[in-house]
């Protein structure tokens, strides 16, 4: 594709990814509140719509109508733009995820690399947003976030690399097609490393150290309000969606060769299972301390991923 058609496709993809994330956030927040309520002997949202499904919609309306506060100490330029710097890369990375057998919105031969590399840009948004707030809590949160997100990219990339070696392709669609059931026990370690480092990558509990509400109040987005705050939250749920869909596609075999809507339904079911697991972990475990978090990344997860890669490499050579 080139010229006008390519541009139109790009715009459509961008809008599509943006709305997908918005939808994912609407559903994700509701689902998280229901899951956490179940764990904590509560009911969660009940009043707005059936099963409280419309609760998040009401929350969104409230957030959009809220005042967009610019703190007097903040540096307006970076402060106002930082949410988008976090959001856009995550939305773009979503395009590389295969949604059904043989189809991804952005089907490229380096899709896996694209998916892992592009969201790294959002580290800048976290760092800049925290720094530009002119608030010590936000600054510490931004610094913590940057250190954490950069560190966890290493085990995350290594874990996906195992799958790349097995599949012999970096094209997510191809990786999904090449998947065999016996890879599941073989790459179990890589899957665990992928899930754990993805949770850290998206700053969720038990790795929500950058926003640690009991220490830093809300960390790098402590001073944000209204729609800008909502964009930060949406990015978090967008990252959950992207990581779960990609994990389901690459590690669990995604749609198992079923094309079209049915294949997407299979993929989505697996992804929701991963999302639920991520939420279960968050609502069960306490939070790490930042030095313990770094130790986990470099002393546990990275060696685990390396050993897995070596094992997978041997198997691939023997095949």
């Amino acid at each position: 594709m080139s010229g006008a058609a390519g541009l139109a496709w790009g715009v459509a993809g961008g809008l599509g990814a943006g709305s997908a994330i918005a939808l994912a956030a609407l559903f994700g927040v509701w689902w998280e509140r229901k899951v956490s309520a179940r764990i904590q002997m509560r009911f969660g949202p009940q009043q707005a719509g059936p099963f409280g499904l419309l609760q998040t919609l009401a929350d969104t309306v409230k957030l959009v109508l809220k005042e967009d506060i610019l703190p007097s100490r903040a540096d307006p330029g970076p402060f106002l733009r930082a949410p988008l710097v976090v959001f856009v890369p995550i939305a773009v990375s979503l395009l590389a995820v295969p949604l059904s057998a043989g189809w991804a919105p952005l089907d490229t031969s380096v899709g896996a690399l694209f998916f892992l590399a592009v969201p790294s840009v959002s580290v800048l948004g976290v760092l800049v947003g925290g720094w530009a707030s002119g608030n010590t809590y936000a600054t510490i949160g931004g610094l913590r976030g940057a250190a954490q997100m950069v560190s966890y990219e290493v085990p995350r990339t290594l874990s996906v690399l195992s799958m790349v070696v097995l599949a012999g392709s970096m094209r997510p669609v191809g990786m999904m097609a090449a998947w065999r059931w016996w890879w599941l026990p073989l790459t179990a370690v890589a899957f665990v490393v992928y899930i754990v480092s993805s949770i850290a990558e998206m700053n969720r509990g038990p790795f929500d150290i950058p926003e640690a509400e009991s220490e830093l109040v809300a960390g790098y987005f402590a001073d944000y309000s209204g729609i800008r705050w909502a964009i930060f939250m949406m990015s978090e749920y967008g990252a959950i969606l992207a990581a779960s869909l990609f994990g389901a596609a690459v590690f669990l075999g995604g749609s198992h060769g079923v094309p079209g809507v049915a294949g997407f339904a299979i993929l989505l079911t697996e992804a929701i299972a991963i999302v639920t697991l991520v939420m279960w972990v968050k609502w069960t475990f306490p939070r790490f301390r930042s030095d313990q978090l770094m130790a986990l990344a470099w002393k546990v997860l990275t060696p685990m991923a390396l050993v897995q890669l070596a094992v997978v490499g041997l198997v691939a050579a023997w095949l």
Partner: protein
Amino acid sequence: MAVDIESRTPVEDAEGRTVEELVVNIGPSHPSTHGVCRIIAHIDGEIVTRAEPVIGYLHRGIEKMCENRTYLQIVPLTDRLDYVGSMYANWAYCRAVERLASIRVPERAEYIRVITCELQRIASHMMAIGSSGADTGAFTMFVWAFDVRERVVELFEELCGARLTYSYVRPGGVARDLPDGWTDACRAVVDRLPAKIEEMDRLFFGNTIARGRLKGVGVLSADDAVAWGASGPTARGSGVDWDLRRDDPYSVYPRFDFDIPLGDAGDAYDRGRCRLWEAVESCRIITQALDQIEPGPVHAEGFPRLLAPRQGDAYDRIESARGTLGVFVASDGSTRPYRVKFRSPAFCNLALIGRLAPGHTISDLVVILGSLDPVFGEVDR
């Protein structure tokens, strides 16, 4: 007291460069200050070099207010000291007044006091453990602990209509006898508690992340605990074997068989776990008390409508959930006390924060504060 939080002292770092330290103002309005504590933390990177508690945000002048009220009118004021454990302040104050006026309390009233105060200990410790969970990001622990607390608070509501400020223990006895069916409801709650507490122990204290967050954090040596006047679980977590219920027995405590859980490391983990097992011991005491309690009056006979003790003073202390709670009452022979002074365990324990925090990270500062379990109604008075 004016505190200058803008001043950034130049300090020398490990490599000999001169750097500025960052001053972080935590509180008085912050999710983890357990009320309205303010801590000025000087940090180098993430390491706290100095932590200064600033208190007084909840000062209401309760001790002074006591001087303008009759002895009975002071009871509701004592509720507002330690609002997580109002029964203790009620009881400690009443004991001091009873000592001053030589009032004999009926035995049934003593039993009821023990039962309610041990229930209060469970409720208070659940608050402490739950907020330790919230401080470390384990919000589920918080909700679980509050579920246990809720059962106890419901018992109190049935007992005296209040959930937080009871004014139930009065000079001379208690406000009213136990309602019908209350002992059965209490027994039902207490029987179910130890299993729940063990479940919470597995959820939180058995968790690897929680162990990593709490162990070795805020280590208080036994000598320091004694020297700084720490008491209650804060001191017992360091292995200081001191509990007034056993070592300076009051009321009917000598009739019960119970253990006093001790820690050995003196870190946040041991302090938290001491609280957890103390709640189990409280269940044992309550069960025994419910077995032994006999019908009878719950208030001293011939108690005057307006109490005017003879001139003099009296001091009494009890083991509250936070430690040694002492009350000093001085009378000039009139219907109002000349002076009332509370020895607050939360105040003494909080003073340790400046000693325990340096060398730890900001995240640990919050954990240490939570492990000291301050209640600011009692710190500021």
